């Protein structure tokens, strides 16, 4: 299995220039086709954050489910989840969507997956100024807090990237061979949203669910993102578990991808 991943990484590294070309093309198409292209990157998650804020603080009055300030708490969760969700939906279709190119050009085919994760990742990074804006505002009004655990933020980025590459490598070939995969992915993502500490913190979940939540690799990722903005103690266990789960998924994904590659090429 590790042999596969070493070979795949070498292949991708050799074609890194092409990878950037494709990523730039994705961003170009996304931002050139709409006059307020960039705003769409942030309007969507902000609208979701606003909905959750109203529902959970005004209607349910459940202020204790997240850390304070709760708005900042959900904005981090919703932004990161948007990257996850877009990346998983689109990597699952990565080979089908580019069937013409996959059929006509010989290049490491893992590229089609990594390229989506990267392009969506850059959009995520571009949406971070919004997060910074909220953080600065809350610090200015004395409700917020920023500390040195902010160094965990890039760790979260790397973990989330690897996790999504693993999932993408796993899902992309399966979607080609079994047409229903993308529907299943859609449902799984909707469930995953609530099985991930986005609108609530792990501490708010009952003890019995906490163990299950800990095995959700996105728990650790969000933990790493939030560490610098909230005084709560860093949950190392969640981050380590997330790294392990992501690593295993990456190995499995890379193995499945190379096993199914010949069948995918015949089908596509």
């Amino acid at each position: 299995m590790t042999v596969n991943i070493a070979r795949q990484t070498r292949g991708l590294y050799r074609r890194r220039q092409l990878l950037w070309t494709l990523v730039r093309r994705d961003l170009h198409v996304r931002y050139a086709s709409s006059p307020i292209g960039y705003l769409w990157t942030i309007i969507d998650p902000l609208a979701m954050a606003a909905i959750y804020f109203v529902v959970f603080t005004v209607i349910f009055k459940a202020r204790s489910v997240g850390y304070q300030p709760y708005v900042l708490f959900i904005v981090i969760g919703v932004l990161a989840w948007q990257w996850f969700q877009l990346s998983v939906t689109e990597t699952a279709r990565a080979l089908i969507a580019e069937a013409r190119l996959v059929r006509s050009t010989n290049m490491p085919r893992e590229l089609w997956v990594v390229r989506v994760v990267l392009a969506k990742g850059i959009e995520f990074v571009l949406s971070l100024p919004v997060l910074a804006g909220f953080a600065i505002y809350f610090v200015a009004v004395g409700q917020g807090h920023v500390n040195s655990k902010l160094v965990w933020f890039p760790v979260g980025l790397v973990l989330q990237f690897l996790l999504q590459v693993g999932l993408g490598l796993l899902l992309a070939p399966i979607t080609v061979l079994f047409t229903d995969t993308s529907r299943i992915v859609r449902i799984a993502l909707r469930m995953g949203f609530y099985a991930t500490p986005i609108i609530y913190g792990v501490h708010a979940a009952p003890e019995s669910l906490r163990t299950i939540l800990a095995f959700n690799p996105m728990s650790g990722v969000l933990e790493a993102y939030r560490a610098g903005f909230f005084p709560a103690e860093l949950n190392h266990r969640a981050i380590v578990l997330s790294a392990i789960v992501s690593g295993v998924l990456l190995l499995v994904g890379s193995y499945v991808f190379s096993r199914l590659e010949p069948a995918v090429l015949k089908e596509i």
Partner: protein
Amino acid sequence: MKPVIEARGLGVEFYRSRRRKRSLREMVFKGHTGAPIDTFWALKDVSFDVRPGEAVGIVGANGGGKSTLLKMIAGVLIPDEGRVTVRGGVAPLIELTGGFLGELTARDNVYLAAGLHGLRKRDIDERYDEIVDFAGPQVAAAMDMPFRHFSSGMQVRLAFALITTLDEPIVLVDEVLAVGDRAFRERCYVRMENMLSGGRTLFLVSHSEGDLRRFAERGLYLSSGSLIADGPIDEVISQYNADADAAS
């Protein structure tokens, strides 16, 4: 000199009627257990060598495995049996506009598609004018238009111009030796001849006897996935014609 293309016992098995692409519903309701899988070998036990600079034409009836063989040499299909070794890069004139995107301008598309085929930005800058020139004045005037506004003829002309400027030592052609209108077609032929005299290796699939005789020296005859004949193109074409006449 080592052969540039080396095929050994090449075989690939396909599923008839796209059985692999079953839906979840089918899997759940019909069960996934041992339904007899109907397969056929699109290629079976095909072996040959191609030396650098050779021009090889593939003949055979539809479904004989010609395009499949070409795809395997291009590396966009992986054999189930045997192997094919290709020494050097490949310029595939297979799905010409495959790397082009409708929303982008033609100029962006040239950079993108050339990048997909491994050219660096610097190399593309150098060749840009040559590519556009070859595609013709009509195309040159519209390079800042979205690619989808091009007529289909203009699209293939630009794509043909681009792929044939790649310096790859091996050129694979699947029925698209000449595209566009009559005037442009003649320029395609001239360009193919220049490429050949420049020492490129040509691998050509065609149903046009004229094209085959004009460009290829050697012929491979594929029938139902097997390599039946390998020899001088004229002999191979006569054998194919004799078989086809006998069958009809």
